[in-house]
């Protein structure tokens, strides 16, 4: 397994697109987080919000949930879809014919890399956006550190989810469609329905979709982290099964 993981790590870091995506995630965070913070503080000012009513890291959390997770998710997806596109999957499977082992190695490498990138990104995002919350931001050191850590974990889980979906669909375009559906469209529609029918049921189901569960997880409800992890595990398991049973 360590051999396979070492090979997958080399494969990930030896293509320029990996680093472009990391840079893209950084730019996204640096642009969107401050903007989100400004919007939040303006809203609170307009509606007379209480001081210290939002976490210092809240703008960064929002940015992760609605922007950065797509960029780093794409990185996870590409770890598999690029192999099918370039047909290098045949070489990869010739090297590592035990397909479950290959998938677990890829998932492990993707998770570690995205976590290692995500945590600093979350920290920097928090640092640049928190001041823009003015008096409405509440800074608690332990809580902020936990939230930064949770952002790293959420991003890693979403990347693994994307890897699993990418293995099922095999094509980037289709995978992106599924991911946008699952991470953006479905929760949005569910929340619309919840509002339209004033329904608790729809609202609760919405909170179990990866993005909204992740948002609750990153805000501090640790048990919602298990929901996101379950989604990632399910996608990975489905991907492993698909790779094992289908021709290549």
């Amino acid at each position, binding site marked *: 397994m360590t*051999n*396979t993981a*070492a*090979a*997958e790590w*080399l*494969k990930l870091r*030896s*293509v*320029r*697109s990996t680093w472009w995506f990391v840079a893209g995630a950084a730019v996204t965070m640096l642009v969107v987080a401050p903007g989100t913070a400004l919007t939040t503080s303006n809203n609170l000012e307009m509606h007379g919000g209480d001081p210290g009513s939002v976490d210092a890291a809240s703008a960064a959390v929002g940015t992760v949930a609605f922007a950065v997770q797509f960029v780093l998710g794409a990185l996870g997806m590409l770890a598999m879809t*690029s*192999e099918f596109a*370039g*047909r*290098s*999957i*045949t*070489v990869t*499977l*010739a*090297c*590592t*014919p*035990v397909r479950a082992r290959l998938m677990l190695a890829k998932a492990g490498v993707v998770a570690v890399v995205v976590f290692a990138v995500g945590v600093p990104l979350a920290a920097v995002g928090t640092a640049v956006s928190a001041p823009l919350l003015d008096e409405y931001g509440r800074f608690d050191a332990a809580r902020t550190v936990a939230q930064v850590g949770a952002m790293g974990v959420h991003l890693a889980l979403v990347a693994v989810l994307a890897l699993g979906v990418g293995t099922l669909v095999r094509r980037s375009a289709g995978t992106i469609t599924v991911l946008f559906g699952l991470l953006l469209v479905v929760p949005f529609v569910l929340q619309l329905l919840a509002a339209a029918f004033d329904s608790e049921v729809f609202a609760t189901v919405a909170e179990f979709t990866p993005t909204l569960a992740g948002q609750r997880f990153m805000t501090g409800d640790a048990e919602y982290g298990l929901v996101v992890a379950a989604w990632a595990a399910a996608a990975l398991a489905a991907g492993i099964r698909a790779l094992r049973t289908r*021709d*290549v």
Partner: protein
Amino acid sequence: MITLRALTKRYGDKTAVDGLTLELTPGTVTGFLGPNGAGKSTTMRMVLGLDAPTSGTALIGGRPYADLEHPLRTIGALLDARAVHPARSGRDHLRAMALSQGIPYSRVEEVLGLTGMTGAAGRRAGTYSLGMSQRLGIAGALLGDPRVLMLDEPVNGLDPDGVRWIRTLLRSLAAEGRTVFVSSHLMSEMERTADRLIVLGRGRLIADEPMSKLVAGTEVRVRGPRLQPLADALPAARWTGSDELTVAGPSPREVGKLAYDLGLPVYELRAVESSLEDSYMNLTAQSVEYGAER
């Protein structure tokens, strides 16, 4: 070393490989021939476990591919030279393969040197010509110093120098006792490289013969105005023109003497080498999937 037993692959109602049974032996270069769509690549893919057979087995040293601990050290294959991530350098491509097998980076440099790719190894694989991609693929197949080599059209895109280099390489690998399995469309090369020939047609085994048998050797061609008595005297002869007979067996001298004894004028008498291409065309005439009118 490679054993196929009743290997079959069906896609819906199309049978790509049909009950193929054969055993490849070490120390020989076995050529794999067949028209396009005959099932050669599919067979090789099943040996590597990339596609699962519908029925039957493909074993390497008695074991399925997935059971091999370090597969690249047992069998090195080149199926598709373009199966490389275009943004990755040739060197990194080989290094990733090496890492997965626990092979040191020094071996990567060795095979790069062997295939003449050391200079280009730092460039992105997407910039390689077909010939360079082939060389990289061959380097990958040699990486694990395997006992078995399986190559699908290795001379594709190589210049004449490269073609000769491959031939020498394959023959030397076989001479070391390795099992070499090569598919090709280049008849003349196949004739000079392979010891044994397996011909596939529409997924079925059509021929499995030593090369010497398939290259029928020399025939005699004789032309003259009245050759009928000669044709009667040589039952194996066949008409290859209105005034021309071709016969395998007797020497030109013997045919010439027979014509003289029969009092027949002869305008032309010569030995003709029957080539692998002729034998191959005869064998596969019924089995061409995507053929032009002959």
